[in-house]
């Protein structure tokens, strides 16, 4: 198990380095001479200043050396400087990261729980009205663009019914503390998390249903039935446990989409996370910040993939005995 973890971590680090290198070339592709752009953003564009900037950021050096400097910087968590926001990129991201983690993890938990629940129901009552209803709903949610779900949520729950706040992380100026504050944040979290979770819930529902029906037909289920186990035990211990494997794989594959969805959700709900930061960087064409967020997003996805790999090994009953 330990060597497996080490191997996966090493692989993740290599991929991350490759992404950093890709990032370096993407920055070079961005329009305009970086030094002149930076000088412009800093509000001064005389020759001396541009030359100083070039030297400071190593832009006068040959390309391979620049690449080396850049990679070294990223490794020590220096993601460059955002002139628009007048702050280091790493600091800006660090401030926003907790909000994004809160949003994505809540959405992930919602989607996985509800998805497995609905999928199990649909499979259990396959062919009945309940199954059809769940399947149709899953198909519709699967086809809805996240930004539109978000706006429809606002229209329904904020504008029409006035139940939930339509934007932000907490009530501005309320200065709540302790439990009241947590409750306030939770109230702001419901809609973004549900919006982001619905699409994935639809996927997990479909996957769980298909996979449960598939496993149900296998011989070991017949054996369990022949042994005289109750239906509930067979469903839970034999069918569900095996049927969840492809769902776990899917969760890993979808972590990138989850981050992408967070960019949209945070933008619509003005949720102060790195997705919103990416949108701001986009509007201001702040390429250093944009690519910094991109690297961090990639790192998050890699971490998430690593975790799902480990979980897969934990839940796969076949591996348990082999180890």
């Amino acid at each position, binding site marked *: 198990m330990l060597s497996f973890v080490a191997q996966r971590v090493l692989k993740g680090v290599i*991929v991350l380095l*490759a*992404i950093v290198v*890709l990032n370096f070339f*993407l920055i070079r*592709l*961005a*329009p305009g001479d970086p030094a002149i752009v930076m000088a412009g953003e800093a509000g001064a564009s005389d020759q001396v200043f541009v030359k100083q900037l070039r030297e400071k950021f190593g832009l006068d050096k040959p390309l391979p050396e620049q690449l080396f400097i850049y990679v070294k910087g990223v490794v020590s968590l220096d993601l460059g400087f955002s002139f628009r926001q007048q702050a280091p990129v790493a600091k800006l991201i660090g401030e926003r990261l907790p909000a994004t983690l809160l949003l994505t993890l809540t959405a992930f938990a919602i989607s996985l729980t509800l998805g497995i629940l609905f999928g199990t129901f649909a*499979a259990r009552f*396959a*062919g009945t009205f309940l*199954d059809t209803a769940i*399947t149709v709903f899953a*198909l*519709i949610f*699967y*086809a*809805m*663009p*996240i*930004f*539109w779900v978000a*706006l*429809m949520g*606002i*229209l329904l729950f904020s*504008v029409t019914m006035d139940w939930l706040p339509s934007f932000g992380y907490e009530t501005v100026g309320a200065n709540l503390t302790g439990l009241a504050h947590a409750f306030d944040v939770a109230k702001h979290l419901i809609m973004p998390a549900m919006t982001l979770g619905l699409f994935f819930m639809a996927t997990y529902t479909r996957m769980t249903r*298909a996979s449960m*029906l*598939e496993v149900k*037909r296998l011989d070991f289920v017949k054996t369990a039935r022949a042994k005289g186990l109750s239906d509930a035990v067979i469903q839970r211990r034999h069918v569900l446990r095996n049927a969840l494997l492809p769902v776990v794989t899917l969760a890993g*594959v979808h*972590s*990138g*989409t989850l*981050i*992408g*969805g967070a*960019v*949209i959700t945070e*933008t*619509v709900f003005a949720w102060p996370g790195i997705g919103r930061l*990416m*949108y701001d960087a*986009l*509007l201001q*064409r702040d*390429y250093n910040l*944009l*690519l910094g*967020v*991109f690297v961090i*997003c*990639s790192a*998050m*996805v*890699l971490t998430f*993939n690593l975790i799902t790999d480990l979980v897969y090994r934990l839940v796969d009953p076949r591996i348990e005995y082999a180890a």
Partner: protein
Amino acid sequence: MLKSPSGVIGLVILLVAISVAVFGPMLFPNSPWRMVQRPFLPPFTLGAVPLGTDALGRDIFAGMIFGARVSLLVGLVSTLAALIVGVPIGAMAGYFGGKVDDALMRFTEFFQTIPSFALAIVLVAILQPSIYSIVASIAVVSWPPVARLVRGEVLSLRTREYVQAAVVTGQSNSWIILREILPNALSPVIVLASLMVATAILLESSLSFLGLGDPNLISWGYMVGAGRTVIRQAWWITVFPGIAILISVLGLNLIGEGLNDALNPRLSREGR
């Protein structure tokens, strides 16, 4: 395909969407950018502008018709581009195996690991928003599943007798791949492609929503994005284009499922 009801529904939706995209702008020559009525005209009040107008008095219905063209075109072309990249990579990896396979699959995995929507945003932002950069970025983020699927198919087809026979008769590698193997690997690729068009439409609309659309073309995502700030006064600006996206994506997903049941009876799920 025609036996499954969902496949038929999907096909009907797609045919309607295609005819709207092709003939709509001819029958409805109002430019979607032109001011035709007072701003914020609610829907169903005037027959000439059935779905009302947006904040600048532009016809929502006209926008939706012209937007169909952009959505479908981007969906189809970017999927085609992704196939052009993914199929050869997967075919080579599966056919040659060994080091070639290793190298190509590591490359594919790398692209699969990068968060796709974030990469698409970065690419369009850096290449400057245009229909070309949008198609290119969607293709860049969506080819890896194609390569993996084709690789798997080729891997299993490679050992079949008829392929071995072609090897024995001294056919070239490219001839064997193109004539013997790929035609037999086609059906799962078609299924995947129909689902990819749906994903591409969603991606395009999300990019346009964030303001990364082609500034010269109206698209459904752009319309929703433009209506976002005035959602409290005018719900119809965001609601209708969103429904258009939902229905087209739903149609394509249904077609994908129908095709899957028709082309891969082994894999089709029971209980339906």
